[in-house]
Every structure is written in C-alpha cells, then in structure tokens.
C-alpha cells in the first residue's frame, strides 16, 4: 500500500519512454500504470509520446529505396572498371620504372659511384614506401570496423 502511494506521488518521467517501448520490467510497468491512473499529466504525456513515436516511424526520412541500394551495390561495371584502372596504372608504372632502371644500369656514361648513389636514394624511397604500406596494412587489419561486434 505504501509503495502504491509512493508510485502515485512520484512522476515516472523517463519510464514513460521505456513503457511505450516495451523495455520495462514488470515491476516498472506496474509503477507506470499505477502512477498514470492517478496522474492525468503523465497519462497525457505517455499517449502523446506514443503517438509521436508512431508518427516518426511512419515518416519518410530517407528517399532512397531498397532497389536503389541494391542497384548501387551490384553495379559490377564500376567495380570492374575500377579494378582494370588500378591494374593498368600499377602495371604501367612498374613497366616504365623497370625500363628506366635497366637503361640507367647499362648506361656506360654513368659511373658506378653515381649509380650507387642514385640506387641508395631510390632504395630509400622504396623503404619508405614499404614502411607506409606495411603501416596501412596493419591499420586495415586493426580497422575499427573490425571491432564492431554485436
């Protein structure tokens, strides 16, 4: 009886949201029911929140439908052309670099010391590139999206 009086006297506030969402325990629901029987203000608010929730659920908050997303995801043309583009770019770069290195190494007008110095500089670039690439791969492995678990 004492708890019933307490329920009547205390506004239930956020429990109203839990109530309309079906997220309360049986005891909490009972508390809201008892309070709302005696409190017109909370009863009105509960009904208003319930109507508002329904309206938000019915509202159109996105214009892009399921078909559009499916279409976008299965756009194989984009995927294939992107893949071919990267392949051509990397392949072309490696071919040009290979020819350049070969020409440089067999060029008799360039001394061995100069060749060595240039090789050291390019070796430095290669080391930096590998370092960055390795870092990116590690980051990708520990991508935060991978930690997104339910």
């Amino acid at each position, binding site marked *: 009886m004492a708890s019933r009086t307490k329920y009547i006297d205390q506004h239930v*506030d*956020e*429990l*109203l*949201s*839990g109530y309309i*969402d079906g*997220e309360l325990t049986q005891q909490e629901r009972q508390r809201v029911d008892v309070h709302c029987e005696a409190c017109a203000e909370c009863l009105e608010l509960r009904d*208003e*929140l319930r109507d*508002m*929730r329904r*309206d*938000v*659920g*019915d*509202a*159109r*908050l*996105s*214009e*892009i*439908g*399921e*078909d*559009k*997303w*499916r279409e*976008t*995801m*299965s756009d194989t043309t984009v995927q294939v052309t992107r893949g071919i583009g990267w392949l051509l770019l990397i392949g072309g770069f490696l071919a040009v670099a290979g020819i350049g290195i070969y020409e440089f190494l067999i060029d008799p007008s360039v001394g061995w010391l100069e060749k060595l110095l240039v090789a050291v500089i390019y070796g430095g670039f290669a080391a930096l590139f590998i370092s960055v690439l390795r870092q990116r791969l590690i980051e990708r492995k520990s*991508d*935060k*999206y*991978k930690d*997104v*678990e*339910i």
Partner: protein
Amino acid sequence: MQQKLAQLGGGAHALATQILGNADDAADAVQDAFETVLGSPESYDAGKGPLRPWFMRVVRNRCLDMLRRRKPGDDAADLLHDPAPGPEQSLRQEQRSTVIRRAISVLPAGQREIIVLRDYMDLSYAEIADVLEIAPGTVMSRLHRARLALKEALEIDGK
C-alpha cells in the same frame, strides 16, 4: 549479404542524414559503409548478433569520420532538406512527414540519431547502446530527453 544490406539502406541513410545534416553526404557515407562491409564481409560475425545494429554502427562511424574531416563552419544541420514527395503517398501523410523531418532537424545531432534508431528503425535499447557505444542504462533517459525535445519542437512548429 547484399540483399540484407540493401534492406538496411533506407534506415542507414535516414540515420546518416540526421548525423551529417545532408542527404547527399549521407548517401556517400552509406555507400562507403557498403563498400567497407562488402570488401571484408568476414568482419561481421553473425554468431555475435544481428546484422542491423552492427551495420548501423559501421555507418555511424563512417559519418563521424566524415564530420571530423569537414571544414569548420561546414557543420550543416541547416542543410537538412525535405525530399520531394512521392506520388504514392497521401498528401496528409506527406505533410506529417514534412513536419516530423523539420522538427527532428532542429534537435542536436545526438538526439536526432537516438530518435531515428529507436522510433524509425525500431532498434532495442541494447542495440542502440551498442550502436552509440554508450551504457545500456543511459539509453532510456537519453531517448526520453530527445523525445521531450522533439515534442517541444513539434509544438513550436505547430504554433
């Protein structure tokens, strides 16, 4: 997987729109999230829970990344715009949708997203806590504050 993700596209776009304040940026964010997930589908472990809250978290993280990269002053809650009405919807329902969208758009981003997650996407409190990375016990109070703010915004809009 693609089929299920496509079904989540609309809700994900609604959530992203509320976070980014711009439907076009939101579409980019959802598209990026699709590519991320489809690029490494093994990152989703079906044994650990449903796909929907997990994907919403991916989308939300993508949106937050985009917000971080935005230039100062580019935070465009005012860019929230009303999409054109479709012929299949009744005028009354469309008008109500417009009022709801307008009222949601004046809320702070945190309130917008929690309302979309619960009232539009129907996620449970536990799933919302997971998506927003907050304690489950705080979801109800946050949501209630957001709803009260939305109610007030609707009342102001109606005057």
